[in-house]
């Protein structure tokens, strides 16, 4: 039974269609990455999942039941726009937010203290929120969304604005939570994090779903047409006819192969030519990174939409 299922969900604001017949589902115990460029409808989709806004058409299923507000206490939400009561004391604030999620004051207090220790911000507990750094405030909000031990954790850009140490701390925490069997959905444009953390992804642009599925599935649909070569010496081999595009980053060449029935052979012939003119310290045939897939799909979609609209035909990717 999926934790969340969106079925043909659509939302329009005034003239703009924010979400266009979006469907996907999130399984328990999985880490789900919701990807897309700015303004693509990520936040709009999330808001409909938790009933902040209501879809114009389509349905949202939470925990196997049609959307019902009483299930919301099983959801933890960290919005993209961070917000806390500035003048309020940190502990009071956490207790208040915990109570809103159905905890009693004593439990909320106890869990807040435990979480503050886990997030290494015990010194912030007696302070007012406005006295804290932005990163600390973010950690407090992170805690606030987890106090009631939700089964579904939704985080909109959880790592933005954090230093690497704290970002890793949050990442590890999310991984632990997934191990406990909770479903985690987060949105981001940091593709490296998605590749490292996510089991499933959905890529949306302009409110359309471009791509979805498990990370392996998504990647396996793309041919292993990338070659990375670390070399010293001349770079004349980058003009090989089997190469569609190449970039040379100071002795590290990233090559995209031209479409061919035998990519392996093409890669080998490039390696042979490279060996003839340079010292090779590393040679690797890889699948495209998520970032490359992302850029390729989003650009293709944007082009299709412009040409589609100029021809008066609506093109859907």
């Amino acid at each position, binding site marked *: 039974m999926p934790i969340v299922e969106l079925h043909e969900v659509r939302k329009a604001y005034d003239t703009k269609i924010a979400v266009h017949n979006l469907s996907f589902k999130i399984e328990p115990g999985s880490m789900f990455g919701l990807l897309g460029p700015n303004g693509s409808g990520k936040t709009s989709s999330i808001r409909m999942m*938790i009933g902040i806004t209501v879809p114009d058409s389509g349905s949202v299923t939470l925990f196997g039941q049609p959307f019902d507000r009483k299930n919301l206490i099983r959801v933890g939400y960290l919005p993209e726009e961070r917000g806390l009561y500035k003048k309020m004391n940190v502990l009071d604030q956490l207790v208040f937010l915990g109570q809103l999620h159905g905890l009693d004051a004593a439990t909320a207090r106890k869990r807040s203290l435990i979480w503050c220790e886990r997030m290494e911000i015990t010194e912030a507990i007696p302070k007012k929120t406005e006295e804290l750094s932005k990163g600390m405030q973010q950690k407090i909000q992170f805690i606030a969304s987890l106090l009631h031990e939700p089964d579904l954790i939704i985080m909109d850009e959880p790592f933005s604005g954090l230093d690497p140490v704290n970002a890793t701390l949050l990442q590890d925490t999310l991984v632990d939570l997934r191990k406990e069997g909770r479903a985690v959905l987060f949105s981001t444009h940091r593709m490296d994090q998605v590749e490292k953390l996510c089991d499933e992804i959905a890529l949306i642009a302009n409110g359309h779903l471009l791509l979805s599925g498990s990370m392996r599935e998504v990647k396996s649909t793309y041919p292993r047409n990338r070659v990375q070569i670390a070399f010293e010496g001349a770079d004349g081999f980058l003009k090989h006819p089997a190469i569609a595009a190449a970039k040379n980053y100071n002795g590290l060449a990233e090559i995209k192969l031209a479409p061919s029935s035998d990519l392996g052979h093409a890669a080998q012939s490039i390696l042979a030519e490279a060996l003839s003119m340079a010292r090779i310290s590393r040679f690797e045939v890889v699948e495209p990174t998520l970032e490359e897939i992302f850029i390729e799909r989003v650009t293709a979609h944007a082009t299709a939409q412009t040409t589609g609209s100029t021809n008066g035909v609506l093109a859907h990717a």
Partner: protein
Amino acid sequence: MHNVWLIAKREYIERIRARSFMVMTVLIPALMGGLLWGVGLTTGKTRSNASIAIVTEDPRFGLDLQSELATHKHPKIDATVISPPGPGTRAELEAAMNHKGLDGYLWVTPPASGHASPAFEWKPKSRSYLNTQNELGESVRTVLTKEGLAKSGLGAADVDLLMKPIDLDPSDAGKKDAANAAQASAFGLFFVMYFVIVFYGMNVARSIIEEKTSRIFEVLLATIKPEEMMAGKVIGVGAVGLSQVAIWLVAATALSIPGFISLGSEISFNVPPSLMVFFVVYFLLGYILYSGLAAALGAMTSSEQELQQMNIFLMLPLIACSGVIYNVISDPDGMIAKVFSFIPFCTPLIMYTRIAIHQPPWWEIALSLAGLVATLLVVLWFAARVYRVGILMYGKKPNLPELLRWLKYS
């Protein structure tokens, strides 16, 4: 309901704890008291006792004026008669004014011809002795009239009878003080209601904008409904206002400090319990009406500056109320009072004031309450609609068509 309670509780505790609450609670009565005291000081009796000299060639006129002045109590004027003046008298009087307790002197120059009036020259120590001057003028006129009447052949007894002051006391003298007290209390409570509605209504709007700018809305909206949030906020902030009023009323009743809430120093603060019930009912309804509107305004705008511009919609009816309040107090059953007490946005303030001074017929009270409650429901429905859409909208202020579309959103 639990969520409404949580929101209201947070709002209440955070506000009561804030230093500004303490400051307001102490400062507002102090300012009001100070203002009333100051007004009393400048317009009231400037000098309760004065000692003056009367300089005249005619000793009989001097003595008559002296005894006339002695019959008055407010202000009490002790006069010394100097008659006839010597060559050094003026200098002596000036010196006495500067160094001794003399407050001024009246120099009477006899008329050149028999029929003209004598010339009166009044030299006070300071120009502020307005009351003394009025009193003196009146007394001089009385004495001159009496002299004139005596000259035309009337006997002293007849003259006294003619000049006897006429009492215009109301038939039941005991009611006069009570009516004054009722007016003063009505005015005091009108002011309290006005102030609390304006101040705490604005507070609701401001705190919504604050939450909008701090973007905490999204966190809260993930578990609770916008309607619950708005209700909690209005209740919480309103409870703070009620607490503040309660503190003032208890303090005013207990201490009965002159000039604290009531207007004059002679009138102590005294409100009958039935009127207190009316006060609470109208206050609550009025507060909810205005804070509902304020919540809608707060949700529509996204900064304090924008709110300031919209404020006028909130303030206009209240300003109108304070514009007619003197009229209502002096004529509680008049046309203006009646019309304004049935305008729902003015009902809480004006109808309450009318009840406080002179109870209108029951059907009028019932009608005003019905109109008020009906308006209240419409305003709350409107505010809730605007609120649930508006709090998630940032940036541009909506125009009227956009606002109407908001009402249709689910």
